[in-house]
């Protein structure tokens, strides 16, 4: 299992567009990908758009992403890139 920690830098938080990009890019991975606030038990499936949007993540918040499965390395690469560019 891979864990990523990240602090949101997007001025507008994670609204429809960045959430859409994330979901669209990870939906075909076999791995289980979860996303939520750090130190919070409320993790959601990163392959579900409305769930990701529903987290209402704002700039400055710290998040954690866990990736677990056979293609976790590839998924990790994609997730890292999206975090850097859009989150």
């Amino acid at each position, binding site marked *: 299992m891979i864990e990523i920690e990240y602090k949101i830098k997007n001025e507008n938080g994670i*609204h429809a567009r960045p959430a859409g990009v994330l979901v669209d890019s990870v939906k075909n991975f076999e791995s289980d990908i979860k996303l939520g606030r750090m130190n919070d038990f409320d993790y959601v499936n990163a392959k579900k758009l409305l769930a990701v949007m529903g987290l209402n993540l704002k700039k400055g918040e710290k998040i954690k992403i866990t990736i677990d499965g056979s293609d976790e390395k590839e998924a990790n690469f994609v997730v890292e890139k999206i975090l850097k*560019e859009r989150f």
Partner: protein
Amino acid sequence: MNVLKGVGISGNIVFGKLKAFKKDFFSMNSEKIYTEDHESEIEKYKCARKLAMDQLDAVYKKVLSDIGEEHAAIFQIHRMMIEDIDYVNSVTNIITDENANAEYAVWLTSRNFEHAFENAEGDYMQQRASDIRDVSKRIVSCMSCFSENKKNEDKKKAMIIGSDDLMPSELLELNRNSVKGFITMLGSKNSHTSILARAMNITAVAGLGDQLRPEYEGCNVAIDSLAGIVYISPDKTTVRRLKKKKELCGQRQELLNSFKGKEDITLDGKEVSICANVSHVSDLAAVCECNARGIGLFRSEFVFMGRSDYPTEEEQFKIYKKVAKQMKGKPVIIRTVDVGTDKRIRYFDLPNEVNPAMGYRGIRICLDRPLIFKAQLRAILRASIFGNIKILFPMICSLDEILQIKQILNEVKEELDAKKIEYDGKLHIGIMIETPAAVFISDVLAKEVNFFSIGTNDLIQYSLAVDRQNDKINFMFNPHHKAILRMIKLVCDNAKKSGIIVGICGEVAADESMTETFLSLGVSELSVSAPFVLGIRKKVREINVSAVCGDIIRALSFDD
């Protein structure tokens, strides 16, 4: 008669009956109807869902080709929302658990998700809620779309749509046979909807605010978008006046159309080249339509906009190649990317500046970031074999900058040679003359390049020390100022000595009152936005340069 003042968006003058655009259509379906026939309700939902996704695909493709990726992306996201498994499960559960009709199930699902977003604070939460509402509304309207559409088809009368605001997707779905134009309370000249309206050539006035009142529904309305005015129940005199204006407008366009295919030549036989400026892919169709001599300024910034990262060489190559081929051998002058903190692109990651006009911008960024610059040059060179491409470099202030550029260009050419990749070996390069420094060393610069292009906006700003955005002094932004005209003359004289040509690609090039002056000073190319090309051609053909030239040049000396 009521007269409302707004902002003219596109088109000219149209008449019709005002019809309110039903924003609240969705709320009409919120009533729960008890039904135990779960299967047919779920089937109804599934069909509507499929139809809604097809619509969004179509809208996405249309906006992508007409306007660009930047504006199209949201429709893809809307489609993903419709596909979202939580949303689908919620709708079907409400149908089966609550014995509800499909419309109600969608309405309640939408309410629940909106609620979750609205509860959180922040400006952008509202936006998320409205996205959900928008897709839900679409699904519900797909359930009843057959009956709704028929109703509209019956009305053959000319209609004007009135609304608080129109979304691009809503504009695309209006019935073009009956809808003659639209007026909105919100909106501005540069909104997505306005850009689209211009591309579709539909008449519109936006930004009417509270002036547009619900009780006007059903009234006769006249839109004059040339003046940005809407008349509610116009009186006979006004209607007559507007019809006359529309006729004149049509006549002028017809007259101008008769100039298609004619040469750009003055009465005394001086050849001028009238080209079009392109700042968007969607401008290309208009450039061909207006019969321009070529593209005098292709603002390559738009290739870089609306993205999260730099476009690759390959992506750029495809765009430049397409443009070169589409212009079929007519010249295409591509200006290398010209950004700065006043024309910001996020991933360039430019620091904030106190004085962006004099800051890190244009060629300065390119020379500082050679990898980005080289990728663009490689893409342009590779595309050059598909047409008649020339490269234009912005914001030049010194000879050294040109020498550096030529050095880099040579490196790129050598790399291409090594890989045996073809390009136009005789490709012309030119520079923008938009700083006073470039004007006064234009004799030296002329020996290094194949052409000059005067960027009037910046040249005037730097020379007269006037910021056009500043309301207190923008009246001083004067293209007729003798200092500016003398500079243009100096540039043209120096260019002539080296046998190169001078063009003007700023907004002022479209000002017919200056055409005579420009030609007299020695300018031989004018590049304007497409709608002005034929007007300027008409003007050029009425001018006798040798007859007026002497007076115009004498006037520069203040001896009059």
